[in-house]
């Protein structure tokens, strides 16, 4: 109970923060522009320094937060849902559907992603939606096999058999019997996909799939890559990376909450 409410509080706080940032941006409080103070180290003028074209890193980080969170969370949720849905089809769907699903995954896995992206880039108009769709399209197939491997094991357990015999459909089994067993795995997959979404989106700008000015933590890190040898990476790369890893860590921990409240483990080995 208490945990759940604390989690809700966290979500609410994050959403409020994002709204506040959007508002501040719209009103013009946060101006993010290039300046001749290129690669200035952190100091009083720029608390977190400036980047390679003189933009203030701190403001960039603030502005990037809502976009990154929205993009990463939505893509991760949708991708993982798709992957797990597909994995369920593989495990429960009977021989035909299962084979069909797995072959789809095979094909997506084998056809070079770059090839698909380039083709799509020639067709779609770039933007947030396109980015989201592409990330999902190229991401979901990666997790199907993993989810299926775990699902297959869990689905053979006697409690699931019991539910099946009692006339439960697979969806019911999913909801009540399998979800909890898969929870830590889902957490791990979420983390994977958030990471992918945050990092890949920056790369996609180079295939014409987004505006390279779309400000995300990933794109900030991407543009810091050229500074790895100058020492400027300390303030260009690390802050967004720290924020991203905070996000990943939180997601991971949310994944195993339920599990820990049940039993407290003692010293092991």
């Amino acid at each position, binding site marked *: 109970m208490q945990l759940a409410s604390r989690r809700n509080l966290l979500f609410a706080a994050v959403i409020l923060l994002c709204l506040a940032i959007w508002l501040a941006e719209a009103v013009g409080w946060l101006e993010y522009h290039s300046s001749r103070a290129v690669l200035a180290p952190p100091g009083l003028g720029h608390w977190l320094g400036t980047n390679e074209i003189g933009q203030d890193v701190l403001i960039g980080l603030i502005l990037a937060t809502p976009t990154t969170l929205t993009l990463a969370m939505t893509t991760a949720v949708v991708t993982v849902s798709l992957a797990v849905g597909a994995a369920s089809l593989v495990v429960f769907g009977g021989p035909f559907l299962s*084979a069909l699903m*797995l*072959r789809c995954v*095979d*094909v997506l*896995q*084998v*056809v*070079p*992603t*770059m*090839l*698909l992206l*380039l*083709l799509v880039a*020639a067709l779609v108009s770039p933007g947030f939606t396109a980015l989201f769709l592409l990330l999902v399209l190229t991401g979901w*197939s990666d997790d199907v*096999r*993993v989810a*299926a*491997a*775990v699902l*297959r*094991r869990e*689905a*053979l*357990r006697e409690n699931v058999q019991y539910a099946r015999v009692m006339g439960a459909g697979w969806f019911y089994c999913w909801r009540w019997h399998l979800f909890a*067993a898969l929870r*830590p*795995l889902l*957490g*791990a997959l979420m*983390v994977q996909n958030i*990471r992918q979404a*945050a*990092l890949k989106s*920056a790369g996609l700008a180079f295939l014409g799939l987004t505006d390279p000015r779309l400000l995300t933590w990933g794109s900030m*890190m*991407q543009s810091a*890559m050229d500074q*790895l*040898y100058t020492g400027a*990476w300390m303030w260009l*790369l690390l802050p967004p*990376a*720290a924020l*991203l*890893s905070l996000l*990943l*860590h939180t997601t*991971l921990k949310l994944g*195993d909450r339920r*599990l*820990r409240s*049940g*039993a407290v*483990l003692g*010293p*092991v*080995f």
Partner: protein
Amino acid sequence: MDNASPSLLDHPVPTEITGAGSPAVGRFAGLVGGFVLRLLIFCFVIVLCAMLSRMMPGDTLQVMLSTDLARGLGTGEAQQLQETMGLGGGIASQVWAYLSRLLAGDLGYSIPHAAPVLQLLLTALPWTGLLILGAMPVFLIGGALAGIEAGQLPGGSVDRWVTPVVTMLASLPPFTGAVLLLLVFGILWPVLPTGGAEPLFPAMDQLGRAVGVLRHAILPMLALALHELARFYFLARAETLNLAQRDFIVNARARGISPWRLRWAYIGRSLIPACLSRLSDTLTGLVSAVFFVEIVFSYPGTGYLIYSAILDRDYDLLQGAVVFMAGVVLLMNWLVDGLSGHLARRG
């Protein structure tokens, strides 16, 4: 019931039944069927890629001559070049020509590289193979071990220290790890060579040369492993979270099974299906990750080859890579699917 005769105890039921109905035969048939199906998919993927790659904007010749130093070719000349390079005709006829050559066992010819695709791949593959094979144990075992360690005791000291480090690693773009490794071990504290696959002046004897090659491979391998480590860490951790509470682990501890055996034979084996699945879909990712490593460490290999094949619209080379990757990945998936179904039945 005290009169239950001892002869009743535990008689084996020896009747063996063989025939079409037997599940073993069924499973075997399933495996063979799966193989045939994958062969079909293999062909499909090849045709698909052959078409897709030619549908991308631009063609080999245009990209090849896109430098502003080249003179502009006249239309006649360009046409003639297209023809001699085998790029004439529509997509369908090109794909058809390619496929018939492929059936005859010819993987094609890379025009930008001016070399047969087979030769290109064969010279590059050993290096990539070396990196991947070298990195695999590191990220598989390292990632899984760390994950197991953390998952056994969520919130414990390992979890508290390792998980943030790994999430931090996972938050860095793929290039970074490689560059930082290079900076640290190549420049700040120069103990390992920073580039190339061999010293400029390799040793003359086999052993010395092998040592040179290995020394050069260490940093790239580590960089590659670092890139993949997080995936396996998170996966192993999640699975271990589930496993560590099961009775058989507690019982094994009660039997005094050694911690290493516990990690490997008890938790580790249960992770095999998930990890193998992860590996099978990491394989393609690995090849693209190798690309970064190759760039940073000026290392030879297929990563850059394949990447540039796409950008250069080098159809035959790209196809060759696809044929190869598809073969390996599909074969691996075939094994993984069979194995994970089989292992799942153990519980």
